[in-house]
């Protein structure tokens, strides 16, 4: 078992290398921010000079080696927009995004578990149709649209929540709900199918035939078993979740990583883009690792090869 995890962790190293390469190549192709850093009509010589000082004229390989060398020392370069080390800025913004993501997961779980169980026990009835339909609609609505509608309804018309920004607990609810819908839908569907799976297992049938109450069968036996995939999927949703914050944070002016990234891409602040893609990647990899460990820990049937 230990061997397995040691190997899993060692595998992260080449992955990070590949990611750094992909990101670097993209940034290299993206060309230089020089035209945005200089006035509209700066003479070509000035452009050339700035390029030279920024090391943008070096060949690809040289630039990559310099970049990797700096990165290994935790230096992702300086954001030209903010005149600050890119990594500091990204780490500054991470907590806001984490807060949003955690609230979203809590909301998603709170909705998905009952909805999933309910629709599984009523499989193929109209109730099931409504429940799965509701879940799917959550997944089928573009997030920005949902976000704007929620603002119009709950903030403007009903005045229940603040419109945007980060601050009190009330501020987090609308963006978290927006972010949660997609994941909640995914989780509901997963819980439903894994519940169906466990409900058809022999021991559940046995329990039923022994005359145990339906409710006990459902909650004690079936649900408990279907929890395993739910747990792992929660962690595996990290990537989707972080992706979703790009949209949600823009709509709700939430000062997190997502908004920072969009601005960075628009202004070609590539140091920020590199640093945040990298941090996000590490986060996702860690969560996937945790998912893996939990999965193996919870389900003794899986062998560690």
């Amino acid at each position, binding site marked *: 078992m230990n061997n397995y995890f040691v190997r899993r962790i060692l595998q992260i190293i080449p992955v990070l290398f590949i990611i750094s390469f992909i990101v670097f190549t993209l940034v290299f192709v993206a060309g230089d921010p020089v035209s945005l850093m200089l006035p509209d009509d700066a003479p070509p010589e000035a452009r050339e000079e700035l390029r030279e000082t920024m090391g943008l004229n070096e060949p690809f390989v040289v630039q990559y080696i310099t970049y990797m060398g700096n990165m290994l020392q935790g230096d992702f370069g300086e954001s030209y927009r903010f005149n600050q080390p890119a990594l500091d800025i990204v780490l500054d913004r991470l907590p806001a995004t984490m807060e949003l993501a955690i609230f979203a997961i809590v909301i998603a779980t709170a909705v998905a578990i009952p909805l999933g169980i309910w629709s599984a026990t009523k499989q193929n009835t109209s109730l099931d149709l409504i429940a799965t339909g509701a879940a799917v609609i959550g997944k089928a609505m573009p997030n920005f*649209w949902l976000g704007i509608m929620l603002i119009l309804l709950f903030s403007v018309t009903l005045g229940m929540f603040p419109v945007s920004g980060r601050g009190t607990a009330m501020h987090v609810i609308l963006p978290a709900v927006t972010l949660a819908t997609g994941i909640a839908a995914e989780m509901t569907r997963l819980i439903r199918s894994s519940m169906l799976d466990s409900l058809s297992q022999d021991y559940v049938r046995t329990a039923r035939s022994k005359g145990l109450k339906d409710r006990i069968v459902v909650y004690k036996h079936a649900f408990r078993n279907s929890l395993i995939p739910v747990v792992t999927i929660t962690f595996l949703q990290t990537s989707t979740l972080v992706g979703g914050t790009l949209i949600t944070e823009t709509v709700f002016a939430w000062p997190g990583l997502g908004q920072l990234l969009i601005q960075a*891409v628009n202004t070609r602040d590539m140091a920020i883009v590199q640093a945040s893609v990298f941090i996000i990647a590490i986060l996702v990899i860690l969560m996937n690792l945790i998912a893996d460990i939990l999965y193996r820990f919870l389900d003794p049937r899986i062998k560690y090869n």
Partner: protein
Amino acid sequence: MSHESQAVVNDISKDELVENRPSSLKRWMRLLWRSKTGTVGLIIVVIALLVAIFAPLIAPYQPQEINPVNMLKPPFWMENGSMENILGTDNLGRDIFSRILYGSQISILVGVMSVVVAGFIGVTVGLVSGYFGGIIDNILMRLVDSFLAIPTILFALVILAIFDSGVFTLIIVLGVTNWVNYARLVRGEVLTLKERDYVKAAHSIGVSNFKIIVRHLLPNVISSFIVISTLSVATTIILEASLSFLGLGVQPPTVSWGSILSDGRDYLSTSWWLATFPGIAITITVLGIIFLGDWLRDVLDPRTQK
């Protein structure tokens, strides 16, 4: 020989589906009818496809045709609305109904084609990786892990900001950023398949690797591929809309549902019809595709067979 051995792999109902050609359509229909959601899904998808194909025939106007004297007209059932523009007009006087019809073409095209691109890359990588194993598998899987660690929308955002986004770029970008799921799935299946006797037998009598992959492995992973690619079309349509919101989707005069929706968002509170109808179009279509995909999974996946 391969037919027989394949039949061993497949479970009985699927075997029936594939082998008993004459009755298979009827059986499909029966299976479909049993699932309410599947039926609904199929109907929606068929309608969406028909709309996309026949958009030029149905649409009363050209989607980019502006009309300054006819701006922000509401749908026909409202005051000031008329049958000329049944779903109203937008801020440039363009007919929303026509735009949605034409938009379906691009949305569905981007959704389907990018899944084809992603599927092609993913299935190839998965087959190769799973079949050959060893160092190749190791390298490819690390590549998969890397792509997996970067959220698709983020990946697409960075690439599209660099290359100006036309429909073609969009398809390629969404394909290239989305293939990992297929690779992982296919690899997993191949790992089990290659332990089967018939594959081993083929190998021992000297059938070439390429032939084994194409003849014996590929057909067996197709059904799982279809299931997840169907669902993937749905997510891609949503993704395209999100990219439009970020200003990186298809650019005018090309219209997609995503671009109409995102152009209309400034009007949600004053002229709600600009963003509401494309929103509904997306939601219903995606809903249909997911229903259909779920049903396909239930039917094609031997594990969920009763």
